């Protein structure tokens, strides 16, 4: 996508290109500025977090905040990260395992309620999680899944699944039916064709859906706040909030935690970025 964008831009007038680049620069700055500020604050010594100095790396830069986050046993940073990782990875895996066959069925088979089903899945995406909070909470109480990772995963699944099914269905639609038919003739069952031909061909779409599901769970706060009440079960969004005291917030370690937490996500994005571009466009173009 980026490739074609710039190729097309080449044909444009230099004024248009200048304008496009200006807009992009402004957009980047707007997106990056808060992040850079957080990094700056995380590097300040505890005495000067509210300093008005605007330099990116403060003159008295120190890693003390990082040290206290990473190594202070009272903070529990590693527990939060471990909990978050577990919840997010399981959410991503289970969403993938359930979404792939569902999407395949939506893409290939005719059945009663197919179209309404798809629309229904889409409609669920219109409700913000906050709106679902109360019903989710009541259901989880009935299921005795409060203060339980599975309860949280179940909630995240209800957000991640519809989206994953839509993305994967869009991608499967682009894979010609001939391939499965060739596989049937070569000797697979329909299920065999799905596993041996369709799934291996869909790695881009599968990685993207996994990434989105992971992200859904990784940075979610409100549902986690309601479902998890024991400190030991806190995911990092809940954990970092404990750094905010009632009267005084330790902004240094807080920022350091924010920076550290974004590292796994950045790595994941880098790993899947080549699919992110090709896969999403492939999934979008039907044919």
């Amino acid at each position: 996508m980026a490739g074609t964008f710039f190729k097309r831009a080449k044909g444009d007038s230099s004024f248009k290109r200048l304008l496009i680049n200006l807009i992009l620069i402004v957009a980047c700055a707007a997106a990056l500025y808060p992040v850079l500020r957080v990094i700056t604050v995380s590097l300040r010594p505890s005495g000067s977090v509210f300093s008005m100095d605007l330099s990116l790396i403060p003159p008295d830069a120190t890693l003390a905040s990082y040290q206290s986050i990473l190594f202070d046993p009272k903070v529990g940073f590693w527990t939060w990260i471990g909990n978050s990782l577990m919840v997010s990875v399981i959410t991503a895996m289970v969403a993938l395992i359930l979404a792939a066959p569902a999407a395949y069925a939506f893409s290939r088979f005719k059945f009663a309620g197919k179209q309404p089903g798809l629309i229904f899945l889409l409609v669920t995406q219109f409700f913000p999680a906050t709106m679902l909070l109360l019903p989710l909470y009541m259901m989880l109480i009935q299921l005795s899944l409060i203060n339980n990772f599975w309860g949280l995963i179940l909630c995240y699944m209800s957000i991640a699944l519809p989206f994953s099914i839509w993305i994967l269905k869009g991608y499967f639609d682009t894979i010609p039916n001939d391939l499965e038919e060739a596989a049937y003739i070569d000797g697979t069952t329909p299920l065999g064709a799905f596993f041996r031909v369709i799934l291996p061909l869909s790695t881009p779409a599968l990685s993207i859906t996994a990434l989105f599901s992971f992200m859904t769970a990784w940075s979610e706060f409100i549902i986690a706040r309601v479902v998890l009440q024991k400190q030991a079960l806190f995911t990092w969004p809940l954990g970092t909030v404990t750094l905010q005291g009632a009267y005084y917030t330790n902004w240094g370690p807080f920022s350091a935690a924010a920076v550290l937490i974004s590292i796994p996500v950045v790595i994941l994005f880098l790993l899947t970025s080549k699919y992110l571009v090709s896969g999403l466009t492939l999934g979008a173009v039907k044919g």
Partner: protein
Amino acid sequence: MAEVRLVNLAKAFGPVQILKGIDLTIPDGEFVVLLGPSGCGKTTTLRLIAGLEEATSGEIFIGERKVNDLPPKERDIAMVFQSYALYPHMTVFDNMAFGLRLHGVRREEVDRRVMEAAEMLELTPLLARKPRALSGGQRQRVAVGRAIVRNPKVFLMDEPLSNLDAKLRVQTRVELSKLHMKLGVTTIYVTHDQMEAMTLGNLVVIMNQGIIQQMGTPSDVYDRPANKFVAGFVGSPPMNFFPALVDGEEELFFQMASFRLPVLPERCAALAPYRGKDVVFGIRPEDINMGGGDGAVHIPVTAKVDVLELLGAEIFLYLSSPEGIFVASSASQKLLSQKFLKLKATAVSFIARVDPSTPAKEGDSVQVVFNLGRSHAFDADSERAIY
């Protein structure tokens, strides 16, 4: 290897009847070409035999076995798709080995068979490549290779050459022909390209609108078309058709809008029941020659050259015959007059395929002679061949 037999096979998609009762027996080891215009149901027939589509009614036999209810994998067939349908994520080798592995063939045997097929199709240097790194012709050969390694009872090929350029198409056609001679597997080959059909098939099956029109050797369908559709579909440029009235007493004539031709004595018996009725007279472009004729049977027809197409070894003349050189026989004149008025309304234009040495130019008036021994006549209503 096996015989393939279709018995009153029908297929409908919803309310639309696509195949309307196909009866076809393909002898063991034969190379049969299914030829017909786009949308006539060729692919559908093939998919029914392959088991990718379920028959609405009728029976399919492969060898002695009725296969209607068997899934594709149990029918022991291989198919070359029009789109090739190579697995994009597998190498050429894996594409060809996939079916063998699924059938639990031993490793060494898989290697041996794939190498052998690759050798035959000159794919050996490409075995490690993915399909996307192949040219169209190479992909086509991989698709064929994937079919032959399996050593199936029947090959099904759906327009496998349609994506190739003209030269490669001819070349691959010859290769497929050789391959069939070598392997001797019953092959059903679908195409809408009649050149392909005439050169490849031992037997040609002509289909139209879900019905088999004729089955025969290439020369059968060319020289003795069973009906007007086959006559017009096979051959390029197509056969010329003239609406005609059968006229005369003892001697019969074809009365066209602007000229008349005698019916050869040996054809009179067949045409006698049509005396005074509409028929369609047909003659191929190559059976129309320049010249004055002999005056008796081969009467010259005067025509104007509208367009002249020079194609190297031959010339196509697009001719039209002027009106009003017509004398009806007195006896049937009354009977004919009305129908004849209708005939007159249809323009008479036709194509002749002549020697490039002809001096004719566009706009010229020329004399042509119809080789009546090679003409055809069709019933105007049923369109069946009278002879």
